[in-house]
C-alpha cells in the first residue's frame, strides 16, 4: 500500500507537468492578450511593447513557459499582471474561501444523497423511489446558476432573511466561524450542492439496489441478521463505487464554480478565474489551474486509498 501511494505520488509529477503545459498552451491560444487587458484601448504601441518586455511576453512561447516553470518550481507562482499581487497569495486566499464552500456543499450533498439514495433503493413504495429519482433528476438538470438567482430572489430580496452576496458582513475580513458568516454561506452552499446531490443520489440508489440483489444479502437474511446489520454490509459493499463518484464531485466543488461564485460575489477560485479570464491574467490563470489540478489529483489518490482500505479485494498496483 505504501509503495503504491509513493508510486502514485511520483506519477503526479509528469501529470502536473503535462497539466502545466496544457494550461500554458490553452491560455496563449485564446484571442486577446494580457497587456491589452490592462491598458486603456488606445495606448501607444511603444507603451504596450515596453510592458510586454517588462512582463516577458516579448519572448518566444517556449522561453516564456520555461521561465514560468522555473519560477513555479521554486514555489513562487509569479505576479499577477492585473493586480501586481503575488499569485501564490491570491490563489491561497481564494482557495481557502472555495474550500470552505466546497466542504459545506459536499457535506450537505453527500449526506442527503446517502439518505435519499438508500431510502429509494430500499423503498417498497414506488412513490418514494420516484420522488427521490425526481429530486436527483432535478439536481443534475437544473442549471445551478439559475437556481442561485432564484434562491437570492426568494430568500434575500423577497423575504430578506439571508444576505445575497459576499463572504461575510461588511465589517469583517475573510471568513470565520460565526453566525453572520454562516448566514452568508447558506445560499451558495445550497446552490452548489444541487449537482453533486443529484449525481451522488443516483449512484447510491443504483449501487445499493444492485448490492441488495446479490446472493450474499440473501445469505445474510437466511442467517437471521437484522435489517440494520444487513444495511451495514450493504453500505460497505456499495461504498467503493459511491466514494469514487463522491471524490470526483468533491474535486469539482473544490475547483470552484465560476458561475456560483460570480453570482454570490464569493471571493474564491471561481471568482478569481472569472476575473483572470476576462483580464487575460496569465500568471493567475496558470497558477490557479495548476494548484487546482494538483488538489484534484491528490483527492483522487486519497479516494483510491480509502477504497482500498474499505474493500481489500480492490488491489492496486
Amino acid at each position: 500500500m505504501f509503495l503504491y501511494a509513493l508510486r502514485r505520488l511520483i506519477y503526479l509529477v509528469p501529470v502536473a507537468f503535462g497539466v502545466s503545459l496544457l494550461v500554458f498552451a490553452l491560455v496563449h491560444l485564446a484571442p486577446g492578450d494580457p497587456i491589452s487587458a490592462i491598458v486603456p484601448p488606445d495606448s501607444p504601441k511603444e507603451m504596450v511593447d515596453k510592458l510586454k518586455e517588462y512582463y516577458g511576453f516579448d519572448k518566444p512561447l517556449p522561453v516564456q513557459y520555461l521561465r514560468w516553470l522555473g519560477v513555479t518550481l521554486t514555489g513562487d507562482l509569479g505576479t499577477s499582471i492585473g493586480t501586481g499581487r503575488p499569485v501564490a497569495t491570491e490563489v491561497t486566499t481564494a482557495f481557502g474561501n472555495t474550500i470552505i464552500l466546497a466542504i459545506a456543499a459536499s457535506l450537505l450533498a453527500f449526506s442527503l444523497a446517502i439518505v435519499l439514495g438508500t431510502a429509494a433503493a430500499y423503498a417498497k413504495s414506488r412513490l418514494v423511489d420516484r420522488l427521490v429519482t425526481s429530486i436527483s433528476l432535478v439536481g443534475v438538470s437544473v442549471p445551478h446558476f439559475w437556481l442561485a438567482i432564484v434562491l437570492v430572489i426568494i430568500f434575500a430580496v423577497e423575504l430578506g432573511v439571508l444576505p445575497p452576496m459576499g463572504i461575510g458582513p461588511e465589517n469583517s475580513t475573510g471568513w470565520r466561524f460565526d453566525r453572520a458568516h454562516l448566514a452568508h454561506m447558506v445560499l451558495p452552499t445550497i446552490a452548489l450542492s444541487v449537482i453533486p446531490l443529484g449525481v451522488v443520489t443516483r449512484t447510491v440508489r443504483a449501487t445499493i439496489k444492485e448490492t441488495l440483489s446479490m446472493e450474499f444479502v440473501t445469505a445474510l437474511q437466511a442467517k437471521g441478521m437484522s435489517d440494520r446489520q444487513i444495511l451495514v454490509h450493504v453500505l460497505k459493499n456499495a461504498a467503493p463505487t459511491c466514494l469514487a463518484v463522491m471524490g470526483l464531485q468533491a474535486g469539482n466543488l473544490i475547483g470552484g464554480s465560476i458561475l456560483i461564485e460570480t453570482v454570490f460575489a464569493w471571493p474564491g477560485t471561481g471568482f478569481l478565474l472569472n476575473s483572470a479570464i476576462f483580464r487575460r491574467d496569465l500568471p493567475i490563470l496558470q497558477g490557479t489551474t495548476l494548484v487546482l489540478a494538483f488538489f484534484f489529483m491528490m483527492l483522487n489518490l486519497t479516494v483510491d486509498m480509502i477504497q482500498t482500505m474499505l474493500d481489500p479485494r480492490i488491489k492496486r498496483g
Partner: protein
Amino acid sequence: MFKRVRVAAASVGLLAATAMPAFSQGTLRIGMTAADIPQTTGQPDQGFEGFRFAGYTIYDALVNWDLSKADAIADIKPGLATEWAPVEGEPTKWIFKLRQGVKFHDGSDFDSDVVIWNLEKILNDKSPQFDPKQAAQARQRVPTLIAWKAVDKYTVELTTRVANALFPYDMSYIFYSSPKRWEELGKDWVKVALQPSGTGPFKVDRAVPRERLELARFDGYWDKSRVPKLDKVLLFPMPEAATRTAALLAGQVDWIEVPAPDAVPRLKQGGMVIVTNKYPHNWAYQPSMVEGSPWSDVRVRKAANLAIDRAGISKLLGGLMIESKGVVYPGHPWFGSPSFDIKYDPAAAKKLLAEAGYSATKKPKIKIAISTSGSGQMLPLPMNEYVQENLNAVGFDTEFEVMEWNALVTFSFQPVTGDASKKAGTNAINISRATVDPYSAFMRLYHSDFVPPKGANWGILKDPKLDELINKAHSSFDRAAQTKALAGVHSYIVDQAYWVYIAHDLNPRAMSPKVTGFVQAQSWFQDLTPVTMK
C-alpha cells in the same frame, strides 16, 4: 405563495439574524461593476469606474473636474494647481502654479518635488519609483508631455512635444501619490496598494482584494467645501448585474452601478431611485475609410445613419439612452450646428443607397466587429441585432464578427488594414468611446496622425480639412475660441457622417432612497463628497 416560503424560511432567518449589521448613518455602500477593487496606488485601472471610485476619491490631479452640476457638461477646474498658462511666446511650455498647504493623508507635504517624482513614476522607466502598472494606465493620457522640471517649491514647468492648448485636460488624469508612503513601505507598490496615501477627500481605511475597498473621510482635505459628509464609503466588486440588483433590493448595498435595463422596473417597484444623466459617451460604428470600402462613399454613410430606428433601441433599453446625433449630444458646447440631421428616415436612406449605385441585387456589404459585453458597450448583442435589421431593411447586407471584449480591444490595436481585420473581413468596428475631452473625442479618433497603434483612428480616416480643423482647436489658447473651433470640428464630422452614430448611454445607477445629496454630473466621474445617508 411567499407566505408559505416565509414560514419555511423562519429557521434560516434566525441564523441570519445577525448577518446584516446596522451601519452608521454616514456609511455609503456601493456595488461596482468591476470584478476586483481598482488599483489604489495612484493611477487606477478598471477604466473610468476605477477613476471614479479609486481616483478622484483618494487623489487629486493638478487639474480637477467640476462635478457639482447636473445641468451642464463637467469641465476642468483648479485642483492641486491653482493656475496654469503657457509661457509667453513658447506655447509648448506650460507653467503650473501649485496649491500651498496641501497635505497627504500620511501628513507629508505636497510640492513641486512631489509632482516631478510622480511624473517620473509613470514616464521615466529608469526612475526607482517607476511603476509599470501605473504607467500603463497613465501614459496615453499625456501623449504630448515630454519634459518636466521644478521651477521653485510651488511651480513646475511642463513641456509638450507640440503646441497643445488642451494640455490642461490631459493633466486631469494624472494623480499624485505620496513619496513618503512609498519610502515607508519599502519602496514596494504592492504594499502601497494596501495602504495608499493621496491628497484626495477620502483616505483608504482598508483594501481587501476582490472583497472591498473601504474609504474614510479625510478631515484635513484642502478644499473645505468638499470635505466629505459621509464617514465612510464601502466599495464592493460585483461584476454580475443580477447580484448587484439583489444586493440593493436586499439592503446589502445602498447604491449600484449600471443596473440591467430589465431590472429597472423591479428596482423602482422596490422603492429604489434610478439616477441618470447625459455624459460624454458614444456608441457608434467606426467604419473603414480605405479605398474599396463601401463606407468611403458619404452617401452610404449617410444612408446608414438614416436607417437606424434609435427610438426603438431606446425602448429596448428601457429608455436608458439618448438617440445619437453625432459624437456629442445636442446641447453639448461642442455640438455646433451641423446641417446633416441624423434621424430615422428609411426612405431617404434607400434613396441615398440607390444614388450610390446600390440595389437589391447589389447591396453594400458591411461586416462589423462587435463584442458580447464590455465596458461602456451597453447591451451589445441585442442592440447590434436591432441595428442589423434596420440596416438590412434599407438595403445593406450586414454581418457581424462577434468576439469577447478583450479580444475586440486587442483587435482594435491594429487598424482596418491590419492582419486581424483582414482575416475577419471586417470593415467597421463597434467600440464605445469616452469623449470626455477634445483629445479623446476628436484627435485620437478622427485625425490622420492617430491611426493605430498611435491612436484610435481604426478606419484610417484621412481628411486634410478635418485635420486642419482639429489642429486649429488644439492651438486655440483662448477658451471661447477653442470651444468654437471644437464646435466647427463636430459640425464638419457630422456633415460628413464619418461614423454611424447610434446611442449615448445615460450612465444609470440605482440607489436606495436613503442616499441623499448626490448630484449626477454629466461626466464619467462623480463626486461622492456631498452625499449623506438618511
